[in-house]
């Protein structure tokens, strides 16, 4: 894949969440899979995601939330994106996005309603996310660097 063709991702952990391990690994895995990654780290506000997405001309925002407040933290992100001119930007969310062990199909519905394109259950491996990112962003499998 050419440098210029690389798809651009903004990633980070939303809200007051400090779980730092997963996002570091996602950064490593997405980069390794051929994406251009802007990693905002932990405790990222909605405004910071949007600012970074505008600045880097990002193709997708990948929101991580582990600590359980994901539902409160993610509200309104899609609207704010629209307002900021990021209409239609791909929004992913994953991690442990609600409090407690809940029926995932319900959780998925609620986050879809909030405007997220894809919602992932706890413990989703990076490979899965990469698979969907490539699909949704139209990256051809052969063209990308593979993890070995």
């Amino acid at each position, binding site marked *: 894949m050419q440098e210029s063709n690389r798809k651009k991702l903004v990633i980070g952990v939303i*809200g*007051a*969440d*400090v*779980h*730092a*391990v997963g996002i*570091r*690994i996602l950064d*490593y895995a997405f980069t390794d899979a051929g994406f251009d990654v802007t990693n905002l*780290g*932990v*405790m990222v506000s909605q405004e910071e995601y949007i600012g970074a997405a505008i600045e880097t001309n990002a193709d997708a925002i990948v929101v991580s939330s582990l*600590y*359980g*407040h994901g*539902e*409160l933290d993610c509200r309104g992100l899609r609207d704010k994106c629209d307002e900021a001119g990021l209409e239609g930007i791909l929004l992913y969310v994953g991690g*442990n996005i*609600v*409090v*407690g*062990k*809940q029926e995932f199909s319900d959780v998925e519905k609620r986050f879809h309603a909030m405007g997220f394109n894809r919602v992932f259950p*706890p*413990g989703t491996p990076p490979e899965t996310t990469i698979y969907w990112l490539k699909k949704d962003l139209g990256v051809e499998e052969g063209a990308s660097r593979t993890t070995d």
Partner: protein
Amino acid sequence: MDEVRNVKWTRDDFERRRREVLTQWPTGKDVNLEDAFEYHQGQKPSKVFSNALNDAKRKQITLVQPRAGVPLVQDMIDLLTYLQNEGEADLLPTTIDSYTRQNRYHEAEVGIEESVRTQKNMLNGFPAVNHGVRSCRLLIDSLERPLQIRHGTPDARLLAEITYAGGFTSFEGGGISYNIPYAKNVSLERTISDWQYVDRLTGLYEEAGCPINREPFGPLTGTLVPPFIGITVAIIESLLAAEQGVKNITVGYGQCGHLVQDVAAMQVLQSLTDEYLRKYGYGDVNVTTVLHQWMGGFPQDEAKAYAVIGWGSAVAALSHTTKVIVKTPHEAFGVPTKEANASGLLCTKQMINMLGEQSLDTYSLQDEKVIIASETRCVLDKCFELGKGDIARGAILAIRSGVLDIPFAPSRYNAGKMLPARDNDGAIRLFHPGNVPLTTELLEFHQQKMEARAKYEKREASFQMVIDDVYAISKGRLVGRPRNE
């Protein structure tokens, strides 16, 4: 801010800050020290945390404690009553929600309202500041066991004021252990000073005859933390606490998974904390220990999670820690139901009681103790050196320079240059020492351990190896072997 030093605060200094603290949120105005002392003095001795711990230490038994927090008061009472009666918990927690931990009391208020409205728990813990002194006492009065505040709050001054006045007799945290793993942008000067406030407050209670137990948070990021790092932080925070008048300290450690390394670490944790406290003039502090069951990523399967819980319990029993903090079979998913929480407790209790009479006396235990103690002394003595004898100053400089370095920490004040990985037997060693000032012999030891593993796995030691180790337990192993294996 004045330069932070490890010196006992004057009453004036304390009172000056106190006025600020108590006005951070309306509930602060209900705090009254005299009334609080009276409430504590009237408490049943069996409900005082330090009594339970000192008693267990004397009897060489291990007490069992869960984590638990829900947003609403009555739910919290129900939950803890269940864990006490059905879960056979010896010690009870009150885990604080993440907004409160960041002093975002307005958002916590929204979380409370949403929880009432949706009948779902919208917060991941109990917002004690918003609920205030009276609600805390309602908790305490409704239960038979001692209660502790468990949180992860860089600035926990108001939380301490309210929950101490509310009758809690133990408080987790410290200026390093509740900053580096729990914050991104808060300076150590800030948090060490804020925790001196909490410790001084604790000292005031102690001086009034109301023992309050303090517990530095041992596991830090819970992710491949080499034992000596956790022990060093525990000792520093003990020294800082003792200077402010704290008399009851529980030092903690997060299980690594390697039996001998874990038992050695628990023994060194106790003996070196005692030693350094004595050496610096705080010989009258009661030191007890806590082991946290595996603090990293858990397997999703509940039966597999029980194995991880069981193994943590076995290590706690074999190292005779004073207490053990329990995980649950829901760990990989989210805040557990009360039933799942009780299951974790009962599994732990069974293991602790089965193994309580047994001990370990391995040859390698002696070696491992020498190694961990030497590593700890290297770092700790360097901290004193950097601080020109002042450990508050020294700790700040040590962390800034990576002399004391916590892996996978979110804080930008942490160097993050040291990289840990497991050796071929599963013990946590240094893959890359960064600026950690170990002796040449110790560095060589770590290097050889890593080389042995690399050779066995027929691959170079690399960050991929570290990642494999991060995932390992959740995927059913201790050592993260190459995927094709």
